[in-house]
């Protein structure tokens, strides 16, 4: 149990997927304008990551059995794309209010580097199935944390007096660099 908690905590703080590993930047910059959309995107990402890991891990075991592990990129991204499409269809039919809250973010998640990144990282780090799921959970939480933190930061930037050239994306990126700097303080924690 202890190593599972360490996996989650180090995914969230020490090796934060967005701020240290640079995955999932596009939605991070695009969606973090408002708290509401950040929370929505974060929730959707956690869900997709955990389920995608649950699906891709057995797929990799299957590929390994037939010694065709080089097909893993194609297989994983296919599983993720199909899974997202499936979730969209199901949500639309079964829970329309949830669909209107989260649904718009789902297609964006297919191209989220972090989702493919975490499924590949689980294999490269040699995690067991349970460890992989917890790693995915931790990564999803890390992504949501970064998103929510950042929506607060951006809310403040909106009302600040910034030079014309730096308005918009440049100021957002520089703010991100300072947030990333602060997360560096967690380095070395949890061994």
């Amino acid at each position, binding site marked *: 149990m202890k190593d599972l908690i360490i996996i989650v905590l180090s995914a969230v703080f020490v090796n934060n997927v967005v701020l240290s590993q640079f995955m999932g930047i596009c939605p991070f910059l695009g969606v973090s304008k408002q708290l509401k959309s950040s929370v929505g995107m974060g929730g959707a990402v956690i869900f997709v990551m955990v389920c995608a890991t649950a699906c891709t891990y057995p797929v990799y075991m299957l590929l390994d059995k037939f010694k065709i592990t080089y*097909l893993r990129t*194609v297989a994983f991204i296919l599983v993720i794309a199909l899974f997202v499409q499936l979730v969209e269809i199901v949500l639309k039919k079964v829970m329309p209010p949830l669909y209107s809250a989260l649904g718009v973010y789902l297609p964006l998640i297919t191209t989220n580097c972090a989702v493919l990144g975490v499924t590949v990282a689980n294999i490269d780090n040699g995690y067991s199935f349970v460890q992989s799921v917890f790693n995915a959970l931790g990564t999803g939480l890390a992504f949501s944390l970064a998103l929510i933190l950042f929506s607060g930061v951006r809310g403040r930037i909106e009302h600040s007096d910034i030079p014309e050239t730096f308005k918009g994306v440049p100021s957002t990126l520089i703010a991100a660099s300072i947030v990333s700097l602060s997360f560096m303080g967690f380095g070395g924690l949890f061994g």
Partner: protein
Amino acid sequence: MKNSIMPPLALTVICIVVSGLLAIAYNKTYVDTTGVMTDELKAGCEDIFGEGDYEILLDSDAEEKTPVTFDTDGVVSVITDGKDKCLVELVEDGYSKGGLHLLIGINSEGAVEGIYFLEIGETPGVGTKVQEASFLDKLIGFDAETDENSVDNITSATYSSKGMKAACKKAVTLYSQNKEAIFSDR
């Protein structure tokens, strides 16, 4: 009816075609180098010890050519020239998993003679500093009795430095425990 059959069918066909083409490409480009003395390995051996007749220790009992690893985690192969020189090829975790793929040369006193980098996957500019002579010189002469903490880590490259030291420790320990077995084989 046709509308709901066609799309999944088209997707399946595309997947099969792509997989097939990749299988062909894989077989054309993949080179199995287990148990084979590659040019890279040879260059590493010669870089540390100079010219010599180096061979990978192979498990004579196994069917295929499997390198002897003395059941040590991370060790890929053990190379020797049959007389007194020994090199250990191993993969160690630095900051990134498996980021240090090294060839460590061990002299007849059981101490590190030299280190050759086969592959380094550490953070460029930061972790890759372990390749600098100023750090590597400190590791030369490392033997089974040396305390890992007596060698300082490089600032901001803690994990990479720790990985290097752990690798050296592994190599010298393997040598001191299996000295006879390594040189009796030839």
